[in-house]
């Protein structure tokens, strides 16, 4: 158990900068998720923490201990690999016991702790089997049991659920969450699945092109994305973005000619930058559609209405932009119908048109 402190870590592969001077402090016992599209550098950052990659710059500390130049085995980490990396030539028992054996623990302790780890993952019946005799889900459990069987300061997980089928993934996700809450260890979890990130993490670090764009609690990342990219990557459907102009000295914005008054905070942000053109971001559930014209509502036309059970997902054309809107399940919206969209001003986020940063 330890705090992880990452200072200006840089990793290059030839001319490609995989991790660009990233700094991040992960407090002891926190479950942090590194989230981003493939190629964003999240796995490379994880491997730098593990010591499987040598950093090209910066330092990494575990609880004040500088581990930057330590080999993997001296960092006191455990890791779950995307491919599980369960040893095919060893039984499940020997797989789980491997870390304990490497620490030369007495036989009785190895046996006890291996058994305990297996029970936590509900695989105590499989201890005598070889990995080839297990299903993918069972192998995944072996990989997790192996990682938690011995004492490590830090638990690293590299897309552990991505090779499971959808149903198993849901089940395992819930189980992992319960398990890791009990373990109270520092966890760094890499995924490209935003739902996984939202459901598991104490905090989420959203990465793109080797940089961390935002580190916040899941609900903050969802509600108040720090960048255009974060809003478009997280949430299903992703955040809507509409081109808007600053009007009324920055106290309001105009979208397709309709004026929207801004709450004080957004207005201050807009006035501070003095930008004339911005992106207005708003999530589907923060837009209220209506069949009747109303003041400060954007007129549009419904292209598609998809009943999803809990709600109806509308795709609405507003000017040249397409907007996703959640309507109540009992509402009667049809395609080709005219609709007026009322945006919840408190939930509106404004983004700089060039940098993509939130104002």
């Amino acid at each position: 158990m330890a705090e992880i402190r990452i200072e200006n870590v840089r990793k290059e592969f030839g001319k490609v900068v995989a991790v660009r001077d990233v700094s991040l402090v992960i407090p002891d016992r926190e479950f942090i998720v590194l989230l981003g599209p493939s190629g964003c550098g999240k796995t490379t950052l994880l491997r730098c923490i593990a010591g499987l990659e040598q950093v090209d710059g910066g330092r990494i500390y575990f609880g004040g201990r500088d581990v930057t130049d330590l080999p993997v085995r001296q960092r006191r980490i455990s890791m779950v690999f995307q491919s599980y990396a369960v040893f095919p030539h060893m039984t499940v028992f020997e797989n789980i016991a491997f870390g304990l054996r490497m620490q030369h623990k007495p036989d009785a302790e190895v046996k006890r702790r291996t058994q305990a780890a297996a029970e936590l993952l509900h695989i105590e019946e499989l201890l005598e089997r070889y990995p080839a005799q297990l299903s993918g889900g069972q192998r995944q459990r072996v990989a997790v049991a192996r990682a938690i069987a011995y004492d490590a300061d830090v638990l690293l997980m590299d897309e552990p659920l991505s090779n499971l089928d959808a149903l198993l993934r849901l089940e395992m996700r819930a189980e992992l969450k319960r398990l890791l809450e009990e373990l109270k260890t520092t966890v760094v979890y890499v995924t490209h699945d935003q739902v996984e990130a939202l459901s598991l993490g104490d905090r989420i670090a959203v990465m793109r092109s080797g940089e961390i764009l935002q580190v916040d609690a899941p609900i903050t990342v969802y509600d108040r994305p720090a960048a255009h990219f974060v809003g478009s990557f997280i949430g299903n459907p992703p955040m809507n973005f509409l081109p808007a102009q600053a009007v009324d000295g920055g106290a309001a914005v105009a979208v397709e000619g309709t004026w929207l008054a801004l709450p004080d905070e957004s207005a201050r942000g807009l006035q501070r930058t003095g930008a004339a053109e911005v992106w207005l971001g708003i999530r589907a559930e923060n837009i209220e559609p209506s069949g009747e014209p109303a003041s400060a509502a954007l007129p549009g036309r419904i292209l598609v209405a998809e009943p999803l059970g809990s709600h109806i997902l509308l795709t609405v054309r507003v000017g040249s932009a397409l907007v996703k809107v959640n309507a109540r399940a009992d509402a009667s919206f049809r395609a080709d119908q005219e609709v007026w969209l009322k945006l919840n001003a408190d939930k509106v986020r404004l983004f700089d048109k060039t940098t993509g940063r939130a104002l």
Partner: protein
Amino acid sequence: MTTRPAPPLSRRIGRGLVYLAAILIGLYIVIPIYLVAVMAFSPRAVVYAYPKPLLPTQVTLETMLFFLNSYGILDSVKNSVLVAVFTLAISLAIGAPAGYALARYIFPGGDIYRILILSTRAFPVVILSIPLITTYISWGLDDTTLGVALLHTAMALPTTILVTSSIFVGVSKDLEEAAMTMGCTRAGAFRRVALPLALPGLAASAIFTFVLSWNEVFGAAILTVQNQTLPARLIVQLNQSPIPFRFAGGFFILVPALVFMLFVRRYLFSLWGVKLR
């Protein structure tokens, strides 16, 4: 479900032809081996008889023993085994690390290295024979088992390197990294994880090298005078030998290759990247 409809006639004929071709090729290889084996275990009178019987009528070890007890044969068998074991040991000691490096690391010139390895096989030993023998004489390696083993190593290395590299490619890098996260050194991870998993393939590659050395004639014949390997001795002796001797010699030298095929059949495919397991 009803029974599956039979495949169309043309498909069935096509498949029949494939099997027919396979059987013919198989017979082409098996029949001579079979006849040699029958003769090698028949008494002398039967071997000299004409026409020769297609089925073994009287089985005896007489002919084989006659061959093995002939002057110099056992010595050359011993030389052959020594040369093959040396070759195997040296080529694995050099080839396996090289194969591992090719499998695990991306380094400048890696692809060229691969091609260079193969291109060494483009030089026929016949062309190299004169420079080779003069070099060996000046180094004092001529007519020694070590000398022959070194030549065989040079011949075996390309296959050893490429084969071991494909074996190690088959052992996921994640496995070694997982071992390292759990407290293994780089070498420890190799020894505890990569090596045990590669072992069957490495054994197959070793047997391959062994048989290559066992069967190699030309190099062994030009490099040795007194300390001949079995093929080198047979190539000199067979033409002047009685027929039973030829059959027995032929059979004796055939056997290791046959046994080898039985053992490594399923690895031969994985050697070239096709996985059977």
